């Protein structure tokens, strides 16, 4: 039997400032070592100043994952030497002297399965190391402290996963949840990272570090399970150790460093007083918390009769569900949901595309309304959508400029229909004997009008002209 547990690190990217100073939490736009101050660079004499907003956001995560939240939280020092750590200790949280980290045990549903959360802690991200030079002899290590002090939430799970697929599903759900909460954008490079603990047949636990993406995490877990199973089959003992994912060779490699033997000498961080999180604060946070993904989904199905699968896709991505919330009216909800899930998701599937897109919720609302009132056919609406994304012009302007409006002028349509009846005499005969086949002729009309003919009117006129 396989057991996998996870340690997920997620930066609170939506915060303005770092965890202990006023440098920017969004360090990504800076030149190396520009986004630093005496505090996050660990200059002698500087002291941490706790970002209260980070505590609130982390507590929200804990509540969203159904974790217990203590009355008071504390910070500890984790002491170790590493070049990316400006103080040579990390300020983090710990539960060994009582539950004092932002979140205690909780659960999250993945399909029918419940995954147990062990704890959630708030801590500072270290700096970034960049290695340059090809051979180990002339390799140099560059240190960039821009990231140092970025608020980071660590989520630790129990070893409740049995397959890498479950891990992947969980991470997708967690990522959607964090985004929906408005605390983080996990799609930013390096914003969400995970280590995995893998064991088979109740044997020793092996920790895999240095995994770059969720995709790699799945691959690394697969590799590790296979490795451990083959050792097990040959009665070779599996060592309890830390292994690194080698991205080039796609294998896990034993880290010869003595990481397991490190003694972190945890003790209370005296520079940060305990933070009280009383029931009033918790209630206030609960009120501030956005509607959960599952509640959104239920509402979409119940209120608007949106099909379950569509509601599922729509609710799980905050970007699209926000668009939906702003665009829909009582009458057009289904149509808006339809446009988003069938068309828009293919057009705005990356950050870059979303950034250049000129689409607003007003466009969406107008477009859905236009479809429903027959101003534009569903077919032509796709062209309109492309144009909206590119130009941001109003829906009515685009319909008229691109001549996408439905052909609903009877005399104009009749001319086209008459020509088709004379061209397609065979099909006309067939339609007379089997009315079902008239759709072929409707299709021909659509072709001739580039999809703009009003479908109901076309059908009626065709029937009239053929005489059925």
């Amino acid at each position: 039997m396989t057991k996998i547990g996870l340690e997920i690190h997620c930066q609170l990217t939506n915060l303005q400032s770092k965890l202990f100073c006023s440098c920017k939490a969004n360090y990504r736009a800076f030149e190396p070592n520009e986004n630093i101050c005496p505090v996050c660079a660990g200059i002698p004499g500087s002291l941490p100043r706790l970002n209260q907003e980070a505590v609130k956001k982390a507590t929200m995560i804990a509540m969203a994952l159904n974790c217990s939240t203590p009355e008071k939280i504390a910070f500890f020092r984790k002491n170790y030497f590493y070049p990316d750590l400006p103080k040579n200790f990390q300020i983090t949280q710990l539960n060994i002297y009582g539950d004092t980290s932002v979140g205690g045990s909780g659960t999250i549903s993945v399909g029918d399965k419940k995954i147990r959360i062990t704890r959630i802690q708030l801590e500072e991200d270290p700096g970034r190391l960049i290695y340059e030079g090809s051979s180990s002899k002339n390799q140099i290590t560059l240190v960039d402290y821009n990231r140092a002090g970025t608020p980071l939430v660590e989520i630790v799970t129990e070893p409740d996963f049995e397959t890498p697929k479950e891990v992947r599903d969980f991470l997708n759900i967690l990522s959607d949840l964090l985004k929906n909460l408005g605390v983080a954008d996990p799609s930013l490079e390096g914003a969400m990272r995970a280590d995995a603990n893998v064991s088979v047949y109740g044997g020793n636990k092996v920790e895999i570090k240095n995994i770059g993406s969720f995709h790699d995490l799945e691959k690394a877990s697969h590799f590790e399970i296979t490795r451990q199973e083959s050792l097990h089959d040959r009665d070779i003992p599996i060592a309890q150790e830390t292994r690194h994912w080698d991205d080039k060779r796609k294998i896990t490699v034993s880290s010869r460093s003595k990481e397991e033997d490190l003694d972190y000498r945890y003790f209370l961080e005296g520079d940060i007083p305990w933070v009280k999180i009383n029931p009033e604060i918790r209630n206030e946070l609960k009120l501030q918390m956005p509607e959960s993904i599952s509640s959104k989904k239920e509402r979409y199905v119940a209120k608007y009769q949106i099909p379950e699968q569509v509601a599922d896709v729509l609710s799980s991505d905050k970007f699209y569900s926000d668009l939906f919330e702003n665009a829909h009216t009582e009458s057009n909800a289904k149509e808006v949901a339809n446009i988003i899930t069938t068309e828009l998701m293919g057009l705005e599937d990356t950050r870059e595309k979303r950034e250049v897109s000129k689409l607003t919720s007003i466009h969406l609302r107008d477009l859905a309304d236009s479809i429903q009132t027959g101003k534009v056919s569903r077919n032509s609406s796709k062209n309109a959508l492309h144009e909206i994304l590119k130009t941001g012009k109003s829906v009515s302007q685009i319909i008229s400029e691109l001549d996408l409006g439905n052909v609903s002028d009877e005399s104009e349509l009749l001319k086209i229909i008459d020509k088709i009846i004379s061209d397609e005499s065979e099909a006309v005969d067939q339609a007379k004997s089997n009315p079902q086949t008239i759709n072929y002729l409707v299709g021909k009309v659509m072709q001739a009008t580039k999809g703009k003919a009003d479908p109901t009117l076309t059908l009626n006129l065709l029937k009239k002209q053929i005489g059925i």
Partner: protein
Amino acid sequence: MMNLKISALEFVEEAKNGNVSVEEFIGKTLERINDVDDKLHAFLSINDKAIDQARDIDKRIKSGEKVGACFGMPISIKDNMCIKDSKTTCASKMLENFVAPYDATVISKLKKQDAIFIGKTNMDEFAMGLSTEFSAFGPSKNPWNIEHVPGGSSGGSAVSVSSYECIASLGSDTGGSVRNPASFCSTVGYKPTYGLISRYGLISYANSIEQIGPLTRTVKDTAFMLNLIAGIDPNDSTTVNNNNEDYLANIDSGIEGKKIGIITEMIGDGIDPEVMAATKEAISKLEGLGAICEEVSLEMVKYSVAAYYTITATEAGSNLARYDNLRYGYDLPVEGYEFNSYISKARKNFGPEVTRRMIIGGFVPSAGHAGKYFLKAMKVKSKLTKEINEAFKKFDLLIAPTVPILPFKIGEKIDDPVSLFLVDINTVTANLTGKPAISIPFKIVNGLPIGIQLLANSMNDKLLLQAAHALEQTVTLPEVPI
């Protein structure tokens, strides 16, 4: 002839009224330093812009512009507090070339009040020690007898005030580092309630118990300084709100009817008979002023030094871990070293006392030993706090000699760290419990000073200063022979 011996309050009055030229006063102060500091070694660096700053203040006084409350008063600063663009060495080779890129909160507050930072003072390396013998740049000397230590770790600060090289100084007190040298050099030395003065910009040694504190000629001067530097600071989350208390107001309220506990454990074995006699004398003087004195036992005091060294070593081991010589420090090329071996090599430049405490600090909180040492020490700390809180239900103040012995000779104890540690027995309690404490110059015996210590409950700093002022008024002391 300019009188360099005046108090802070006297200086401010004279400068404000234009009776004293600040430029002249600063000039004379620099001359004095030039004359005596070769012998005393109170200073590690001198502010070469002091005269210019004084000239500017004089100009502003003359033209009636607004001038801060210090009026150019020369203040010395222990070399573990950051002054922007100046060296802050902690008397260590490790920070020999460290130039602070920012001002400590106390520094920016005093700058606004037009203080002149005349120089940075000598100390035990990273504030670890009580004699300044552990300064990487050589010890300071006691101006009362230069064969003796001035106390420490803020030894340079105490020497500079007592030998008229400045009017006041800021030191830091982790286990007595302000009060001990104040006692040995016959100045006032005060450690406030934990959190009353911001530590932002004070280079940490044991951050959970240390405080910045002034060393001055008079208790009133301490109250004056406290008015300028106390209070909540957004940059130090451990600071407490003092509602802008005026510590000078009503300082002469006296101590009539106040109950004072004499801490039994601090006048027991090992106390010098002269110190004991001085303590008794101080008690009878306080009684003469209407106080009611009675013995009180704090049993945990006998474990306090052990707990103190365990806790401070743990915190030091962490606070000093950043001195890996990668960003500041001395010239040691990194090529050819693996990271950890480089750190070992780089850290060889810590002095013996720092090394000793860092080794202890790596051991006592470690996984296998924390229960036996660090956690036990924390237990002593909390029990001691409970005990002293109990005592303050009955007493307004507590009294004990600041140091159980007289200033010892330079080199006398340097090879016996444990006996040195025990000198801290009377001062560490205030740090472990966060209480305010003050040392008042009380007597000179055989040419060596003895200080008396008073303690008060948390946030009762004003009462403490009133009592200290009352006791101070009963004392007349000879002048320092230098």
